[in-house]
């Protein structure tokens, strides 16, 4: 959580995370080169570089896309979500090396503009099997470039969380383009059953995890609450752990009801930073702390403690016979609401 912008707000955890990324990338490249040269000694250095960085970016993209659903299914994966942006930028660098090397290798030695050459060297646009796969990779690289260059909190703050999120959901378009680029590119060079099996396995794991999470989440959203005189019944107070929250759906939006210091407070579940689930965080130093990146809010008014300015909506609660009730109408973001005392 930063008030002033810095290029990277380093901390011990981020440094450790980045060391693992670099180590993993180097290890992969060495392993890839060793296996390739052992199994096919005639491979040229150009082909090796192209394939090593291309496949590295592809594997990293799968890891990045798998982190979200894994965290939704099991909170033990949350630590790998913390610095996912650095993983994304590292993946873009690997993809960029692959892309630039391919352009230099195949398109830059003639008298035609290399970018123009990407689009015209193979004009079999009518065939799916022989489709010019490099064009797909080029567009995917452009999307990844936009995402990597706007990944900093400066852009998140200035573009607004909504626009930023929409922009970064373009990763799915990039993913579809990359899948097509890799499938068509691989098969136009060398149709191997082993390669197709690996590619399909990666896609199936990703798709199944995302869809499982999506349907699990939609079940939570569709839970029908019992209404009593404009109040919705949430749960018995004993169901909420101390310094933790119960997530409850009100008017299609999730609300986090926190229990702390003998009090109950309800705030909107979505963190203003990157949409993290506040209700899966806990109360630290008297503040609701987002489990994704540590952004904090005061539970009784939904405001970030000064000098920070983020605010989320608040809700009114009441306790009757040990049952928690919530008023479904949200207050303006940052509105102070008297906590509901239970001791």
């Amino acid at each position, binding site marked *: 959580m930063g008030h002033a912008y810095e290029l990277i707000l380093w901390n011990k955890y981020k440094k450790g995370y980045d060391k693992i990324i670099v180590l993993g990338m180097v290890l992969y490249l060495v392993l890839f080169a060793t296996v390739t040269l052992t199994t096919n000694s005639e491979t040229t250095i150009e082909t090796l570089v192209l394939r090593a960085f291309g496949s590295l970016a592809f594997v990293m993209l799968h890891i990045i896309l798998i982190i979200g659903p894994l965290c939704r299914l099991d909170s033990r994966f949350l630590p790998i979500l913390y610095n996912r942006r650095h993983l994304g930028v590292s993946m873009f660098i690997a993809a960029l090396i692959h892309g630039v090397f391919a352009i230099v290798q195949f398109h830059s030695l003639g008298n035609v503009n290399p970018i123009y*050459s990407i689009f015209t060297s193979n004009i079999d646009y009518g065939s799916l099997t022989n*489709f010019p796969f490099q064009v797909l990779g080029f567009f995917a690289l452009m999307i990844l470039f936009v995402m990597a260059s706007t990944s900093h909190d400066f852009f998140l703050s200035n573009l607004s969380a909504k626009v930023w999120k929409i922009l970064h959901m373009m990763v799915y378009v990039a993913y579809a383009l990359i899948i097509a680029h890799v499938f068509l590119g691989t098969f136009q*060079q060398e*149709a191997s059953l082993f390669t197709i099996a690996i590619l399909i396995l990666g896609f199936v794991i990703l798709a199944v995890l995302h869809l499982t999470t999506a349907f699990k989440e939609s079940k939570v959203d569709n839970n029908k609450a019992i209404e009593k005189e404009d109040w919705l019944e949430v749960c018995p107070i004993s169901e909420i752990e101390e310094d933790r929250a119960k997530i409850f759906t009100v008017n299609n939006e999730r609300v986090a009801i926190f229990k702390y210091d003998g009090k109950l407070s309800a705030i909107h579940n979505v963190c203003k930073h990157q949409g993290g689930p506040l209700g899966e965080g806990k109360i630290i130093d008297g503040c609701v702390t987002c489990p994704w990146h540590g952004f904090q809010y005061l539970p009784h008014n939904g405001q970030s403690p000064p000098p920070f300015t983020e605010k989320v909506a608040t809700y009114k609660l009441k306790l009757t016979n040990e049952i928690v009730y919530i008023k479904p109408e949200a207050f303006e973001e940052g509105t102070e609401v008297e906590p509901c005392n239970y001791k």
Partner: protein
Amino acid sequence: MTSGLRKAHRYIWLVLFIAIPIMIVFATKNLSFSGPNSEQSSTTTFTEKSTKAAFENELVKVALYPTNVELILKRPLKNASCIVYAIDKNDVKTAIGQLTTPGKYQFKVTDLPENILIYDEIKDVLITKTNL
């Protein structure tokens, strides 16, 4: 995430879950699979034995038939553009097709060519030429 974003994610993955397998099936249905270094027997021998003329080097095998030219590309090309030309008796070249991936190609011709030439039009370099 807000409910809208959750819904958007759900629909995006449903679309991807359907669209990508369709793309894979259509993209691969015409392919024959082999190991990384094994040559495909179907693409290393000519379709017919009665050739008018034949040529082979480390990159291609070419056979001329009365109405078509059969060309077997043995390994991937490093060139982005590979145009196949038929050269007639007067040394006039006519484009008859394009090469992309290794495999067997058939090109229809009206007159039997004297030679076949493969040229990279982007880099303006000769890739190979037969000596029939």
